[in-house]
């Protein structure tokens, strides 16, 4: 069924349509939530909240503005996950003072990551790797690199400065590159 029809049926309170939407998109939403929330049960809670929020706001969904239904649900999930993190102030404590980072201590060169090798890595492993980042790093990295938010937007959402967001992103990127390089190596490096 096309998305419009599914949304229309859900708007009319069709329980089967809601189930269909849930079963179609819950995996994608869970993937988004797991990138932010390490604990799977908490991530599942966010998934449920996402669908509840979406069903209560279906009249706000317009394909021409909101993109695909999956993308719309993912954006809702992102914000619910960030709200959850912000509420528990998990990441704020981990954020370094604004003076640290690029301006203070230059980061070492980023370990090389084999992009071709990354194509072979199962998605679950990639998500687990991202989820294993410290929450501050993880949140900023997800928002900036994977969910398309600007540093200004991130700063507004998390209550930090843009500079802190930029620093966190660079550090997260550096750390994740190191983890990827360590786990999956570098083909060119491995070759004699």
């Amino acid at each position, binding site marked *: 069924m096309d998305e419009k029809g599914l949304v229309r049926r859900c708007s*009319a309170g069709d329980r089967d349509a809601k189930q269909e939407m*849930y*079963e179609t998109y819950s995996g994608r939403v869970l993937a988004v939530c797991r990138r932010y929330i390490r604990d799977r049960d908490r991530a599942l809670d966010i998934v449920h909240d996402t669908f*509840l929020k979406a*069903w209560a706001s279906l009249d706000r969904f317009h394909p021409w503005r909101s993109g695909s239904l999956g*993308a719309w649900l993912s954006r809702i999930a992102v914000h619910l996950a960030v709200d959850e993190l912000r509420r528990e102030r998990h990441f704020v404590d981990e954020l370094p003072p604004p003076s640290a980072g690029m301006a203070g201590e230059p980061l070492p060169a980023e370990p090389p990551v084999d992009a071709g090798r990354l194509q072979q890595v199962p998605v679950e492993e990639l*998500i687990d790797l991202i989820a294993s980042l410290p929450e501050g790093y993880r949140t900023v990295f997800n928002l900036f690199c994977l969910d398309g938010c600007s540093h200004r*937007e991130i700063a507004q959402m998390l209550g930090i400065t*843009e500079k802190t967001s930029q620093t966190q992103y660079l550090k997260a990127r550096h750390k994740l590159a190191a983890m990827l390089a360590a786990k999956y190596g570098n083909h*060119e490096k491995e070759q004699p």
Partner: protein
Amino acid sequence: MKKNNHKDWTSVLQERLQDATLPVEDGWAAGPLAAGETPGSGPAFPARPGRGGFPGLPVLPWALAGVAAVLAAVLILRPAHPARSVSVREGVLLAQRVDLLPEAIPPARPLRSGSRPSTPSPAGPAYPETPSSGDSSVLPSSDVTPPSSAGLTGESPADPVQTEVRPDEPGNGEGAPRSLEELTQDDFPEEPAAGTRQRRPLSLRLQVGSSGGAGVVSPGRMSTNGVMYDSDPNGNYSSAGYLHSDGSVISWHSEGQDAQFQYDPVTHTLYQPVATRFSETRTPVLPVSFGVSAALPMTRRLTLSAGLAYTQRPGTGVITDAEPGRLPTVVTWQHAALHYLGIPVDLHCYINPDNRLRFWVGGGLQAEKCIHATGAEMLSEPVLFSANLQAGADFRLLRGVRIYLSPALMHYLNRSSYITTWDERPLFSLRAGLSFDLK
């Protein structure tokens, strides 16, 4: 090769994770959603913070409900037995049938003119007889009252009612007493009887005004086609603009990481930038409204009115999305004109209801539905509700024709699907029109 791999690993990560899915073993059946925690049927329209919200019901039920409410008000408030004046014939018959008790009749006033002596008999009725009346009775208009009035009991057809003639009373001739048959309708006052209400005319109002307020939007001029370029591998955006809630562009960055997005705190949705490459052209626009309504006087001071109103709101921006799935995507800004059909229901309280120049205060509600969009996509917009506070004045030009002017403050209770500014804040509204009393 190595350099390319190093540069693009985040892009690969984006591609791999963009549509990634994880198995949800618990699934629907085990989740709380299937256990009855799902919202009720139908969409719950999310209210903005600090605002009320209404379900996005279709306009037809509301229209029918409004019409039904007005009809019910008419049926309930309309007098079951409208007060009516006593016709001449009824007055004659009445006067012929009543028997005035002597003690209920006030003493006759001394005659101001004429030579007839007043010789009240202690045993007789306390009013003088008219020598020339014969078996016809002559009643002063002021003494004729409907049967429900005190002092009129019983009947004595054989005892003709006679009383003095007061030449100075309205409706009487110059000193000439008149028989019952000679009385006219004017001799019987149209005062409503106790317990009944006077019929008030339904009036028809033709109205023109600006019911949407002086919303200011910033349509701007796009120096490009409104395309916001796609992100670079680091997620930066080459250009973006941001439309503030009052219609002004609060930031513009041609490149870098400074793109801003509208954030909806209710749905936690990031909206795309709603405009690109704005010039600071701000065009005040005035929505124009035409309407017709029927006003029903409920009491002497209160009037309930309901009708239809057409409103056109120009200068509305609309964004379109050509690349679903990413945030942000391609956006454009368009000029648009939105056409709304509304059902206003107003209640007016007249401060001085009996004057030629009357003032009123009041309030009202209006339900509006977008029926057409020019230069924009037609969206499945919910019914918009607005409340207003009014003050106004009308002036009677002719009998049954009044002209009125009414400033008002109105506030939209829920939000348009279009990117607009006129639903953001209380708006000033000015209405003027003509009112015609319907007999």
